């Protein structure tokens, strides 16, 4: 047998691929603009199209898979002071140990916890209540940085991947979940802080942008889906895996608010509103972000 190596491509996730794409897009964007005309609502600019092409290529080899694999190991391993696995103790809503389809059916109300929880909050609850981990230890550094990815991030990525290509189905017919949805909707509308911003200031109307970044209108199912799709996501800037909880916090940061507490009601309710609004639409699993 003669094996010939015909092509070897080293695709650097942040460096090699995007530069040509972006350079082209930037060059295209330098063309003089039509006078005083802002781009139309759903018109996609050159940069967006280039990025979508790049993203499609990256989705085929998303580094999120690395965290998914790590998360699967963590889910099945006996860990914590009580030396039990999440697989044998954690009920995400569909029965103990069931992960298939669980992510798209959160947030939901968990009677054993007496609270509405998104998937990340629920896994944290299981780590604390079933495995015996200390909540404050988890909440101290809940999100990935350039040097550290917490276990909870990998676990969420694994659980989310087990709902790939499934329809979002937040159980809004549960009155407690419906109430969380309505409160989340109020949180999204609440204007305060030095700039009088609410979530809806940026995400309450169609066809708006901040700089080049298109802003999904989270009051519509399609817009809400855009706020759900790709989370948890691998962010190429810095190469970090980040969860939907992190994304909500970063919105509040840009809103000039203080920080929402990790795994809190406020974030769970906001996620109930966001994901619930996208109910019925298809979730594609962990994604890749700029």
């Amino acid at each position, binding site marked *: 047998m003669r094996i010939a190596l015909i092509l070897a491509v080293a695709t650097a996730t942040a460096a090699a691929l995007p530069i040509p794409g972006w350079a082209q897009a930037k060059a295209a964007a330098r063309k003089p603009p039509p006078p005083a005309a802002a781009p139309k609502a759903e018109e996609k600019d050159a940069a967006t199209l280039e990025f979508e092409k790049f993203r499609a290529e990256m989705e085929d*080899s998303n580094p999120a898979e690395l965290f998914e694999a790590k998360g699967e190991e963590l889910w099945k391993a006996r860990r914590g002071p009580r030396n039990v696995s999440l697989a044998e103790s954690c009920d995400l809503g569909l029965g103990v140990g069931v992960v298939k389809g669980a992510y798209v059916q959160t947030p939901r109300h968990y009677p054993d916890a007496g609270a509405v929880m998104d998937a990340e909050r629920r896994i944290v609850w299981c780590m604390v209540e079933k495995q015996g981990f200390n909540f404050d230890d988890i909440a101290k550094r809940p999100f990935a940085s350039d040097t550290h990815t917490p276990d909870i991030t990998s676990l969420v990525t694994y659980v989310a991947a087990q709902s790939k290509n499934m329809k979002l189905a937040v159980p809004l017919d549960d009155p407690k979940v419906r109430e969380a949805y309505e409160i989340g909707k109020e949180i999204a509308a609440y204007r305060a802080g030095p700039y009088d911003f609410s979530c809806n200031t940026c995400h309450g109307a169609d066809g708006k942008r901040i700089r080049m970044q298109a802003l999904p209108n989270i009051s519509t199912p399609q817009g809400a889906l855009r706020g759900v799709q790709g989370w948890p996501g691998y962010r190429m800037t810095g190469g970090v895996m980040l969860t939907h909880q992190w994304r909500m916090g970063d919105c509040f940061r840009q809103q000039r608010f203080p920080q929402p507490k990790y795994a809190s009601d406020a974030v769970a309710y906001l996620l109930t509103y966001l994901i619930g609004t996208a109910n019925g639409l298809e979730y594609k699993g962990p994604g890749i972000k700029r």
Partner: protein
Amino acid sequence: MADPMKIRAQMKGDVAEVRVLMAHAMETGQRKDNAGNLVPAHFIQQVTVEVGGKLVIQGQTGTSVSRNPVFAFKVKGAKAGDKVVVNWVDNKGDKRTDEAAIAA
């Protein structure tokens, strides 16, 4: 210990398409942390790939490769069921070997 790689290998006609995802920080040695201190260089230096027991790639990589890199390549003459063995060694001597069989 280093985290596992993800290897996907599949026959497309008479060519095997292989994609390898490696978990590695790939620090350039030029980046500063939040406190302003240089983060020491830490990167994969050597990559080898064997397909069906034969060495098909022996490569050197450096700091221009991104964090958690993806390598994709095509191998002629391989067949379904052949074992793909990927190995890397970084500048601190950490190493990792993973394998997968080529899918039909």
